[in-house]
């Protein structure tokens, strides 16, 4: 016992008391750093994840592509060229530079001398040489009438757009006039002099033969300089309509340019120039054309627009339904949970493909292909989301803050959506980012298979483009290549992005890949 304890405190006079802080405020030390919320924290973590960040950039790029490509492309989805189908990428301005890109190049193997002379024929007449270069010459020697004879076959690269050369077209008189008018204005030769089949050994199926030939295979007769000898018709009795426009070089005015054809005229037309006449521009296909003659560049954009919008719509609907369903299941538990689980069990047992087909067969005609497709996705799509929400609800519903709210008299609905749901939101939102690629993937597969046909609604879809590309895969791989690249990039980056988002929102699950 010390002395101090003996001091009597019972009667301390009032004047001994003094205020410690009368005029200064009592408060904690002010926070030096800025406080950071849940979202900001998640965003910070997301930014650290390089691969997700790159994925996000790629997604933005692909979205912009889908948005812009149909706008900048000179072609709409309804422009279907009947001749330029499954043609490789071609941009005249870049092709002229001779870099070997966008030049519409195709490889032709085993071209013999006859075929080479046919290519030359096109080049001389139209002034547009289809042969870009000779890749390989293969010489074999055969004994021919006792003499050794060299037989050359060539592997060549050609510009497919020039390959067509001349085609036969039948015009009405007015159209014929209009083309002549256009020729005069632009100086571009569309109509070439007519050739009668009797002058070229009765060849009727090859409009590209304009020179004298020695047989019906089209072997040319050459003059002493090795040049072709024209076989243009000068038979005025044949002439279908008067021609008063630019003439080809070497024409002294005697060549005729059309032949009578029952109320119309038949002409030999340079398809490339005819294309310019029709479209007002040279063919420019950045990604080439598909088997319908559509511009792939804009078609991919149009297909992607639908895919992305549809996927976002599906995940929004599934998110809503699944969250409500799972919330009720998880919150009430017990019998309600069990009964609702049975329902989702039955629905999830139904194979998606069967479900889609049934919806198409029943509702495709009545409500349209796209709504029927949407129903199919929604019917089973929400189940995963519901299971996820249910799990989160089981986790949170027994916690103290819920108990506190309940004690204060909060209603069930308030407890579910005001107190528990926001806690589960991070998990739910991030799984939404992973639903989008899975919807795009299924949609692509179904349109590829042709079970769903979106051509009437959306114009085309990536899956449709791929199945069209599949048809001419060996001759025109670009038709399959570009849509594949696009959809693969889109799906990879969406998945990467989704994973990054999940890691950012739930750091505890980092690295668990499912």
């Amino acid at each position: 016992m010390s002395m101090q304890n003996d001091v009597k405190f019972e009667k301390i006079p009032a004047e001994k008391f003094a205020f410690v802080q009368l005029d200064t405020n009592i408060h904690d030390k002010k926070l030096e750093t800025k406080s950071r919320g849940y979202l900001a924290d998640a965003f910070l973590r997301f930014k650290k994840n390089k691969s997700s960040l790159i994925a996000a950039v790629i997604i933005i790029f692909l979205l912009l592509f889908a948005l812009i490509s149909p706008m900048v492309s000179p072609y709409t989805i309804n422009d279907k060229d009947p001749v330029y189908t499954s043609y490789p990428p071609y941009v005249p301005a870049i092709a002229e530079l001779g870099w070997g890109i966008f030049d519409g190049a195709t490889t032709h193997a085993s071209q013999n001398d006859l075929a080479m002379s046919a290519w030359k024929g096109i080049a001389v007449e139209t002034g547009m040489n289809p042969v870009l270069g000779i890749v390989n010459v293969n010489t074999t020697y055969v004994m021919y009438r006792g003499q050794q004879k060299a037989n050359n076959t060539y592997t060549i690269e050609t510009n497919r757009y020039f390959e067509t050369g001349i085609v036969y077209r039948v015009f009405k008189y007015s159209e014929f006039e209009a083309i002549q008018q256009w020729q005069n204005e632009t100086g571009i030769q569309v109509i070439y002099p007519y050739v009668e089949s009797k002058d070229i050994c009765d060849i009727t199926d090859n409009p590209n033969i304009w020179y004298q030939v020695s047989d019906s295979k089209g072997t040319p007769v050459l003059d002493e300089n090795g040049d072709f000898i024209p076989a243009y018709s000068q038979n005025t009795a044949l002439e279908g309509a008067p021609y008063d426009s630019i003439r080809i070089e070497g024409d002294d005015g005697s060549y005729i340019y059309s032949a009578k054809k029952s109320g119309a005229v038949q002409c030999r037309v340079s398809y490339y120039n005819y294309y310019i006449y029709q479209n007002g521009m040279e063919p420019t296909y950045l990604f080439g054309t598909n088997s319908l003659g559509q511009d792939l560049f804009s078609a991919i954009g149009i297909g992607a627009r639908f895919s992305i919008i549809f996927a976002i719509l599906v995940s929004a609907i599934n998110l809503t339904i699944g969250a409500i369903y799972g919330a009720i299941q998880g919150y009430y538990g017990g019998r309600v949970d069990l009964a609702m689980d049975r329902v989702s069990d039955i629905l999830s047992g139904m194979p998606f493909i069967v479900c889609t087909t049934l919806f198409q067969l029943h509702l495709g005609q009545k409500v349209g292909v796209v709504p029927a497709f949407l129903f199919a996705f929604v019917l089973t799509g929400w189940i995963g989301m519901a299971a996820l929400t249910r799990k989160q609800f089981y986790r949170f519903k027994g916690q103290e803050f819920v108990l506190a709210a309940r004690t204060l008299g909060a209603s069930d609905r308030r407890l579910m959506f005001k107190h528990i749901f926001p806690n589960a939101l991070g998990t739910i939102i991030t799984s939404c980012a992973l639903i989008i690629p899975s919807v795009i993937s299924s949609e692509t597969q179904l349109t590829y298979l042709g079970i769903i046909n979106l051509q009437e609604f959306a114009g085309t879809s990536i899956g449709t483009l791929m199945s069209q590309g599949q048809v001419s895969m060996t001759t025109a791989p670009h038709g399959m290549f570009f849509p594949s690249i696009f959809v693969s990039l889109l799906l990879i980056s969406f998945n990467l992005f989704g994973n990054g988002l999940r890691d950012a929102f739930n750091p505890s699950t980092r690295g668990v890949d499912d």
Partner: protein
Amino acid sequence: MAKYVVQRVLLMLITLLIITCICFVLIRMLPPAELPLNDIHTQVIEARREAQGYNEPYMVQFGIFLKNIFTKWDWGISDKLYFGQDVASIFAEKLPATIFVNLYSILLSIPLGIALGIFAALKKNTWVDYSISTLTMVVISVPSFVFAFLIQYFLSYKLGWFPFLMKAGKDYLSWSMFVSMLPTVMSLSFGVIASFTRTTRAELTEVLTSEFMLLARTKGLTKAQATVRHALKNCMVVVLPAIFGEFIGIMSGSLVIEKIFAVPGVGGLYLNAINARDYPIFIMVSCFYTAVSLLASIVIDISYGFIDPRIRMGSKK
């Protein structure tokens, strides 16, 4: 455990019955295929339709449908695609191709997938792990038909190693048939390999960091011993059911891949039945798909219980 299995099987059968019923009614609600006039089969099919109760209420039709299946294995007669032929026998004809192709595929891909997964897990956070994980991620994201296209274009067309399409015929065990199946098998394998790699890696990395692994090392096992005896065994708790599920799933195959390589299998039959609106075939294949997917999920569930006693106990909560 027995009770649990019986319970699950019964539940599955009820689910299957309900789904079949829904599909059946929905398909019967569609107008049946028009039959050609002046064809000898037409009268037979009409008589069969009468016997199947096409004019009765739907539930009566469903009863007749089930009765025919259980008593005579009679799934009806194709009225469009294989006009006048028995659906069950057409189906039985198509099944082997699908099973062979998928069997080869999983025999190739499951060991490979697990091996890659183990490799990645053991080399966790090294460049090996990163590149395996990235590849897995890419393969899982990209639709299978992109791979099929790449294989068809490069291996079949450019290099000419394989035929373009699967060989027709029924000599499934011949060498030439095997070679013609390879592009299909490879295309199917990518996804399976990737999913097994991912599961194995995720599971094994978790197991490797658990405390019993530390105990195993402490009691004197080498790292290899501990990994093989303890970690792999525990990791298989998840991987093995997945393998079972995969084996059941081989029957349903892949619609897309079968279409690309012209595999004369179930997938092709299903697509053709849809396009031709051949409903009897459609019903049978739909039921088949449903049964296979339910069976796969139940096998996975039950095998968990058999493999891991902890899960068996947990099921009684």
